[in-house]
């Protein structure tokens, strides 16, 4: 599928016009091709899942969109225009996977730093802390947090940011089943309140539960874009789950 075709077919979805378009993004690491002409569109207010196995290129794609990795080709369009690299952060915030930043800082200071940098009111910070249950660890150092609370802190930072688009890499990693469901509810709530989310997820069951649409990635290529129903129609598997659809398309 070429870049323009992918976007074209994507635009036929009920969400047009697109908030952001990824057009023909290509990235190589030496001889290795990480992304090969990736194209898709992100619609306002949706939760879009980047689905693929480990090594599919999900993280590289998110970092390329956020401007944290230089690309060899392609463009990122916001409402049809291409913002310069320093301006992308005005539209989107990317939450990388597996971060444990500023380990010697206290949790409350990290949260307050983010809120102060963006000039966010205390009510929003308190909402994020409340939604993610961070209150018991506010006086702990980041380095002393359990894996689960570390993930919650990162999600809280993302919720505090004001950008209309949130990119999250494996947001449900490190949570047990019950916690995952709670975090999914928080994510859905964020989308309901008007923000758009792009989530890189390798657990297909999680993705099926939380995402409105999917971009299926394998070997750095887009193998399918659409809602589960649209993907089922493409594979002629009327009652298949995302797992079966993904296996059929990749």
């Amino acid at each position, binding site marked *: 599928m070429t870049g323009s075709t992918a976007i074209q077919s994507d635009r036929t979805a009920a969400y047009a016009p697109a908030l952001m378009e990824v057009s023909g993004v290509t990235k190589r690491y030496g001889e290795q091709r990480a992304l090969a002409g990736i194209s898709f569109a992100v619609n306002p207010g949706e939760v879009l899942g980047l689905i693929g196995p480990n090594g599919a290129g999900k993280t590289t794609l998110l970092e390329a969109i956020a401007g944290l990795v230089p690309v060899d080709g392609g463009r990122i369009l916001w409402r049809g225009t291409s913002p310069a690299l320093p301006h992308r952060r*005005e539209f989107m*915030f990317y939450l990388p996977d597996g971060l444990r930043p500023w380990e010697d800082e206290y949790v409350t200071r990290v949260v307050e730093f983010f809120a102060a940098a963006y000039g966010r009111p205390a009510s929003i910070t308190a909402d994020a802390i409340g939604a993610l249950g961070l209150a018991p660890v506010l006086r702990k150092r980041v380095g002393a947090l359990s894996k689960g609370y570390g993930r919650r802190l990162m999600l809280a930072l993302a919720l505090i940011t004001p950008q209309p688009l949130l990119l999250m890499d494996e947001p449900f990693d490190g949570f047990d089943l019950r916690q995952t469901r709670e975090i999914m509810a928080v994510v859905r709530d964020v989308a309901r309140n008007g923000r758009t989310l792009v989530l890189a997820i390798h657990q297909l069951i999680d993705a099926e539960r939380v995402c409105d649409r999917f971009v299926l990635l394998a070997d750095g290529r887009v193998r399918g874009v659409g809602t589960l129903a649209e993907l089922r129609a493409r594979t002629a598997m009327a009652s298949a789950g995302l797992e079966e659809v993904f296996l059929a398309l990749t």
Partner: protein
Amino acid sequence: MRSPDAAIVQRAPLHPLLAKELREIVSGRALWTMLLILCPLVGYSFWQAVLLYGEASAAARDAPVLASGLSPLDGVLVPTFGALYVAVTLLFPFVAIRSLGREKETGALRLLLQLPYRVPTLIAAKMTAIFGAWLVALIPAASAVVIWAMLGGHLYVPEAANLVLGHLLYGLLVGAIALFAASISESSATAAIIALAFTIGSWVLDFALAGQPGALEWFSRLSLTQTLRTFEQGLLSPGLLLGVMAAICGFAALSAVWLHPGVPPRTRFMRSIACVAAVAAVLALATQVRTSVDLTEDRRNSFPAADQRALAGLREPLLVTVRLAPEDPRYVDLRRNVLAKLERALPDVSIRLATSGQSVVGSSSDEAYGEIEYSYAGRADKSRSTSPREILPLLYALAGKPTPPPGTGEEYPGYPLVADGRWTLPWFLVGLPLLIVIAWWRSRRPPQIPAQLINKGGQA
């Protein structure tokens, strides 16, 4: 490009960023370790300096003429601050690297770069934090100066402030190099190796190449420690100031160029080349600024005021041809007592070493070896003296001017002091380290949580 969808994050307040950067440096062990190491280093240097100064002062009591040679700048301040120099050279890079290295290692940098701060702002904040760390590192040396004053020691503020300025510039230069090393390295360990290669490499340049003729001598001037020499001599040189500031800004700018991982390598290289070219241009300009201000109380870098005025009136070019090897002690004397002062006093002086490439041993059979020829306004004369008392009359004779009468009341009296500095050691070995440990402990106390943050922040 602006869009109604964009978050209003164009002008983020600076104080949260500055506070974070300062906390980042204070929360690391590197700063506290350096402080604890600095206490005995500075304390021992200061104690030794006071002891030796006291012995020299005791001798000066019996021979008052010796007192004029006793300057607290040379006797106490420079050796005491020498300990700070050692610590800044060897330990300060670790403190400065922490301001960025940990963020790169933990991935925090990827969050930081998305915050509404421009990359130069981030680097400026980190440099401010490094400056703050240097101020903290100054505490032991500053306490030594206070103790010196309490002991009854004399302090001449302009020369002391000039020395502190020199150490500040050296500290910021080392900090900027460390920051640059951290920005191009993936780990703090690699950054430390790069930064130490600069600082320790400077020592090697000093030891191996200083005093060597020709290109080697020029190469030795690239040593970072050369930054301090002029300030230790009590000179404030606008050219040096400009050059060091350009180097600091250059390394900081290079750090900014290499900080953002999203910028393509080709763009980084191009920007780096532009940055290096700009700094080189400023450095070239700085070398053309030859004026300097002698801030010492004893005016050691200048001839007596009457001679300074008379020499300033010699408008023709003066050519000095020296037949001495650079490593010859007589050349060192001549350079310090006469040539350096002539360069400051006369508008147009050229100095030529006629023995380039020769050593003292190789030149000993040459009868002309040791001669210094002075050419002015078509006339020339030779001398083997390294003393201004003989050379200045020679120059006045060449210029056809009378020797100015010596001024009165401008003799430096000297400040001998026999003080008992034994009690200073417990301060540096116990008292100050104890205060530092208490400050470290206090800095690690958990903060208060603002009530409005936990109103809704219950359990998940």
